[in-house]
């Protein structure tokens, strides 16, 4: 029984250390690493694991501490905890407090941030649908003929919105009813191939639900704005999603078309390199380098190892605790 309790105290300490590692050094290292640009998909899996395990380990450490003194193992202790509340010691109360505070805070921020983003998206979609030309209109036919070689693979027209606006603009409004928005300026400035590449890129965002991969990290940064790692994590995940979409566009239309699109829309937007555009300049440079000299994807064993590490990070702590 005492050995059991000692195991759980150790478990709580390990989880606390894990929470600390996942909050600072691990995301910093993953953000600095060069291999994610070679294979964005396993890298994104690792980021999801870091985010999920990081979010669970802190309240998990508190709960484990709370049941340590009960001598019934982890699962049994959790079940018995409510009945024994009046008799548990200070350590259990501290653990409960930590679990409750961390758990509630993370849950509240996750829910409110997802809600805010969904509301803003909904509002923008409603305004956009009123502004975009009726479909299929004469302008829409333009986009279709322009989409040229990738015509067979262009987004379904229900998803496409053409906006009568002179500046080249292209973006994806993700969701259950996604919108891919292209301005007349983009159609005028881009070659047919480049436009097809832009559409393929945005369609990859919409199809792959990249917004769902990014959302936890928006919540994370909101929950811990003082953690530099949270900002680094968000920027890395966003850039990896861009690379994933670039890869899809390359497969559909070739790197030359995508490079031309990046240069046209890029030049327009990056003419003045001030403030927030500096980040965009760095991002553009990385994406262009990836197109001009594509890095070798991770060999299969390395990619498998990355997925395995991601799975282990999420599954190991609860599995070990359940055995305790």
């Amino acid at each position, binding site marked *: 029984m005492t050995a059991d309790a000692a195991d759980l105290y150790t478990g709580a300490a390990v989880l606390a250390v894990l929470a600390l590692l996942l909050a600072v050094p691990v995301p910093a290292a993953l953000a600095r690493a060069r291999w994610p640009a070679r294979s964005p998909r396993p890298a994104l899996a690792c980021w999801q694991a870091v985010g999920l395990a990081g979010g669970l380990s802190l309240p998990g450490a508190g709960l484990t501490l709370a049941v340590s003194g009960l001598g019934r193992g982890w699962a049994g202790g959790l079940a018995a905890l409510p009945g024994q509340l009046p008799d548990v010691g200070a350590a259990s109360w501290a653990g409960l407090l930590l679990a409750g505070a961390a758990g509630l805070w993370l849950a509240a921020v996750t829910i409110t941030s997802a809600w805010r983003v969904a509301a803003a998206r909904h509002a923008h979609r409603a305004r956009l649908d009123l502004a975009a*030309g009726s479909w299929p209109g004469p302008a829409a036919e333009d986009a279709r003929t322009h989409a040229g070689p990738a015509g067979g693979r262009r987004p379904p027209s229900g998803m496409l919105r053409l906006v009568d606006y002179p500046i080249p603009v292209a973006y994806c409004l993700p969701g259950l009813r996604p919108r891919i928005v292209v301005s007349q300026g983009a159609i005028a400035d881009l070659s047919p191939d480049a436009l097809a590449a832009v559409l393929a890129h945005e369609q990859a965002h919409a199809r792959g639900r990249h917004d769902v991969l990014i959302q936890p990290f928006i919540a994370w940064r909101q929950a811990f704005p003082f953690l530099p790692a949270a900002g680094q994590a968000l920027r890395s995940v966003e850039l990896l999603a861009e690379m994933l979409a670039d890869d899809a566009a390359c497969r559909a239309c070739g790197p030359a078309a995508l490079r031309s699109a990046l240069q046209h829309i890029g030049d327009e937007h990056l003419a003045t390199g001030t403030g927030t555009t500096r980040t965009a300049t760095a991002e553009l440079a990385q994406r262009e380098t990836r197109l001009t000299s594509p890095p070798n994807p991770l060999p299969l064993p390395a990619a498998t190892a990355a997925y395995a590490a991601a799975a282990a990070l999420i599954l190991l702590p609860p599995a070990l605790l359940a055995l305790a």
Partner: protein
Amino acid sequence: MADRGHLEQAVLHTLWERPGGLTARELIDALEGRQPAMTTVLTVLDRLARKGLVVRTGDLRPRRYVATTPREEYIAQVMLDALGRAPDRAAVLSRFLGGVSEADTHHLRRSLRRKPRNDG
């Protein structure tokens, strides 16, 4: 739902083309394709009015409906919403390239300041 959205869009686009405004009857006649019922059009106009995009003018019946915001200005507002620097913007939608330059924002602001047309 999709149909109602299409009608809302068609009504707004028709009113954008007639800065002087239209009565509900004239509006129905101006719509292309299958003509909707009067009650349907009045409901759509009511919804557009609640969004602040359409106002009813005049005391005499039939009332005229006028678009409050010219088309270019409305589109510029939506684009500013998409390209602007609101902290959540990158979360809400993913732009082909993350940043937006001063020049773009200036262009957008300028087109927003442009006076609405008074002709018609």
